[in-house]
């Protein structure tokens, strides 16, 4: 084995490479460099949720954005009769709870792991710290969120009765 390969084997972190690869595949982090994705990977918290575990409940104060790496998460909302009504099932690569990056308001839905799911949590406080050192990351993430909100508002406007 060459000395360079040996050094790489000793020092290089294969787990980070995998996480970077996953983050690169997300629309939210489109256009970020490898180093920026590495910085971002350091501020994400990962947790595995068992089927049926509640990620957050309707009415909880939102603090983080959740990115689904594997599994699936059901989003439900309490209906008029108090029964849970399904809203959407989040698939790998999608994210939810993004309003927490903009404001600390109560959640408007409940998120429950439908199967064993690996989630990454991105916090506003951590993101803000990263923004101070890497403003480009913030511009990319916030720009994407703004486009997403704009698209949702357009859709809501179109669906609203004239």
């Amino acid at each position: 084995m060459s000395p360079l390969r040996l050094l790489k084997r000793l020092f290089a972190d294969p787990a980070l490479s995998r996480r970077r690869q996953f983050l690169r595949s997300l629309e939210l982090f489109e256009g970020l460099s490898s180093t920026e994705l590495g910085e971002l990977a350091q501020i994400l918290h990962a947790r595995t949720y068992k089927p049926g575990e509640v990620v957050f409940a309707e009415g909880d104060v939102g603090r983080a954005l959740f990115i689904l790496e594997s599994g699936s998460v059901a989003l439900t909302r309490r209906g008029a009769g108090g029964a849970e009504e399904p809203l959407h099932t989040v698939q790998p690569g999608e994210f939810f709870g993004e309003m927490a990056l903009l404001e600390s308001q109560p959640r408007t839905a409940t998120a429950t792991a439908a199967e064993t799911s690996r989630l990454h949590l991105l916090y506003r406080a951590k993101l803000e710290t990263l923004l101070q050192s890497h403003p480009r990351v913030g511009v990319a993430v916030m720009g994407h969120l703004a486009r997403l909100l704009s698209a949702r508002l357009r859709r809501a406007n179109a669906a609203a009765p004239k």
Partner: protein
Amino acid sequence: MTPRRKVPAAAVLVPAAVLGLAAYRARAALTPFLLAAAFAYILDPVAVFFEAKGLRRLPVIAAGYALSLALTAALYFALKPLAVEQGRHLIDRAPAYARALQTYAGAAEGTLVRRLPLPARVSRKFLDDAVSAALARLQNAPALLLGAVPLLAHAVLVPFIGFFFLKDAPKAFDSAIQALPSRYVEQAIHLASEIDRALGNYLRGLIVVAVAIGTATFLGLTLLGVDNALAISALCAVTSVVPYMGVVAGIIVGGAMALMQFGTFAAVAKVLLLFLGIRLADEILLQPVVARHSVHLHPMVNLLALIVGGETFGFLGLVFAVPVACVLKALLAVGWSWYASESGLKSGAAGACEAVPYT
């Protein structure tokens, strides 16, 4: 959906109180672990920096330790001749310093007795009483400084334990997150992030301030020609981890040294000006950078924290008083934010433009 179960407050508060009491009782044994945790916490961003570049944590920490060891050895060999020379100089001149101090004290007493508008015998008694009271207070100073001596004994133990904290803390944190009930994960990490934001910059800032004050003191005292500049600057750097103490220690020890060495008030005034300059530079140049992202505490809160910390835990209490106050402030802020959102006190309105339709 999992039904919301109400946890009685006593179920959290009673174990927390028992743990707190046990930690207080075992504080002497916990000291190296506490210092090692602070040491690892301060150095963690360095490991994270290299991790973000794609390197594994363990080799990075090992390489960092090896490099630090080499740097410490280099610093030791570079400063040893100067330290030995200054130490020898101090021992040689100690009798002369004592004589100068005695002469100065006698002269000062004579002048004061003449100038005080009281009978000579009364003035002399008044001065003797004042000096006795000051000496009695000074007797406590060695005890306080001696409180810091056992900490020096941890010089090897702290980096050793700190290595394991540095290596395993992220894994321990992840395990704790995994073990928490899923409902509380989001809020628990939020709380940890807020504490980290408040505390991290403060603690890391302390190191920057200590190095800056130590270097400025050494250069300033060397330029003024004051003896033992290295020892005094080391004392200032170490004591500056307690707010205001570095400069106060510098003024007292540096001023006394200048007085004994030169025997004039002009020399003391120069030392005083030097330390006031250092304090101002710290306030104007360093603090805005160091404290920019950390929790801002009112000076009175700082003072209260220092008094309570010092009275309860001695020197270690003085060092950790302000960080603990920062944590409490962060906890209060998070608690208030949670309460305000839950009770609807915070509306979350975006402002006047909220009513304008989306176009």
